[in-house]
């Protein structure tokens, strides 16, 4: 086996391993959230932090806010974002 062919076989084998995950078992896939988590509304800091960290998405459906109860403050200054 030439050096070139040996290298090509190694690379292809690596790609196949990567593509198959190295085994026949499927990867566990985290379910996309469907609603705003309760942890996001425990405080104004948590809410602003949650909103600031939400990634922009072109494909996801909006999260339900039915149960969300955002906290408000009449005396706090805005948090830096």
């Amino acid at each position: 086996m030439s050096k070139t062919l040996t290298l090509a076989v190694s690379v292809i084998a690596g790609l196949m391993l990567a593509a198959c995950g190295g085994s026949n078992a499927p990867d566990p896939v985290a379910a996309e959230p469907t609603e705003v988590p309760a942890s996001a509304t425990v405080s104004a800091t948590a809410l602003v932090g949650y909103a600031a960290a939400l990634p922009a998405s072109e494909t996801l459906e909006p999260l339900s806010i039915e149960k969300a109860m955002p906290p408000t403050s009449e005396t706090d200054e805005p948090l830096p974002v």
Partner: protein
Amino acid sequence: MSHSISRAAPLLGAALLAACGWAGASSHREAPFIATVPKVDATDFYMFRSYEAGRSDYVTVIANYQPLQDAYGGPNYFQMDPNALYEIHIDNNGDAKEDLTFQFRFQNKLAGVALPIGGKSVAIPLIQAGQVANVNDANLNVGESYTVTVVRNGRRALPLGMVSNANGGSTTFAKPVDNIGTKTIPDYAGYAAKHVYSVNIPGCTTPAKMFVGQRQDPFAVNLGTIFDLVNAPLAVITNPALIGALPNTIGDKNTTTLAMEVHKSCLKKDETGDDVIGGWTTASLRQARLLNGAPPSGLQTSEKVGGAWVQVSRLGMPLVNEVVIGLKDKDKFNASKPGGDGQFIDYVTNPTLPALIEIALAIPGTAPTNFPRNDLVTTFLTGIKGLNQPKNVVASEMLRLNLAIPPVAFAQQNRLGVVGNILAGGSDNAGFPNGRRPKDDIVDISLVAMMGGLCVANGTTDALGFGAACNPSAVPLGATAFSLHDAVDQAVVPLLPGFPYLNTPIPGAQ
């Protein structure tokens, strides 16, 4: 007129023209972010000793919101945002911090008017189900109301209490529906008048008046022409005979007014306090907003908001954020407080507007050359000594009013405010920039001022104290600067003779 004003009068008028020029006009859709949220867009702020007969010891404060309203803008029209905070601030010791704040919060309640249709009760799509004539009229499908909280010593301090109705003590006030048209509201003036309240303010022994509702926009301006590189012949806008040659481009628009008429003693720090107060308005939104992809039935259910209030609109002296602050800093200015105005100082000491006027009118070499423009800094950020400068002033942008200067009846008011009065040799020192009245022609004052009239007035002897560099040789236009105008006359805008002063709004149909 005080002695100091009297001595300076001949030059001060011209000086004020120049000083206020860069600050003159209005604030409709002036910043990138605020243009996306018109319900919290402050358009004009007025503060003046009431000139209605018998009310001269009161001060009228008006904050206008929601610009360029077309009267036919149904079916929802222009309700205020229940998720916003609208505020009027008063600084009564010159330290650039609010000492008294009135906080307006709105509630819009769906009445749920439905009609029996084929055996089913079905909700109607309109905000009215018939003629409207009374407060909380049964034919209104949306009830608009508001409360006013009074806060002292810092707007985010704990509130002192609520403004209450002098008749009955309620702290919730009905707001009139907008002027849908003459078939729905045959007597809008009479209907709106039922929403002028006599109110008690915590900490104030004298009842005040209050009105919140739609009004005809009182601001007059040749708006399109100005923003189109001043698209008018120089010969027209420098001819004093043509100050009213063109129609007011926003003369067919309405706005939403928050108005209070408060005894002047309630605005001063105390009986011996400074007679000069500063005022401005702000609007704020909650810092976080969650939008609902599946809003339930109801009114404005598509959002839930939380967090602290974030200021997104600020207005004291007119047109500052419109034509003085650079585009990149307009949102920043709207979020700022007067105490931090040092960050914007370059826009005042080295204003771009005179150079833009040079370009727009093809009159190179005509902008004033006295840099830094201490004439503008002095006049605009501190008030004029002897006129409206607080005793212990901290430089900051706000509308300043000397409560000791008596009001002048409407017919005798000079349309160019203090400047025009001095040039005319009159006795009206109750106008802009000593506060601002609806009749004061801010645009014309601004144009004159921008091109250096202040330094012409300051003369070669620094008569007004704006610095030796501020003299006629720094003003290439010379006396011609005093002839500039926008060809729209503010003084002919229809107004009411008394509180709330601003005219009945234009109906959506008639």
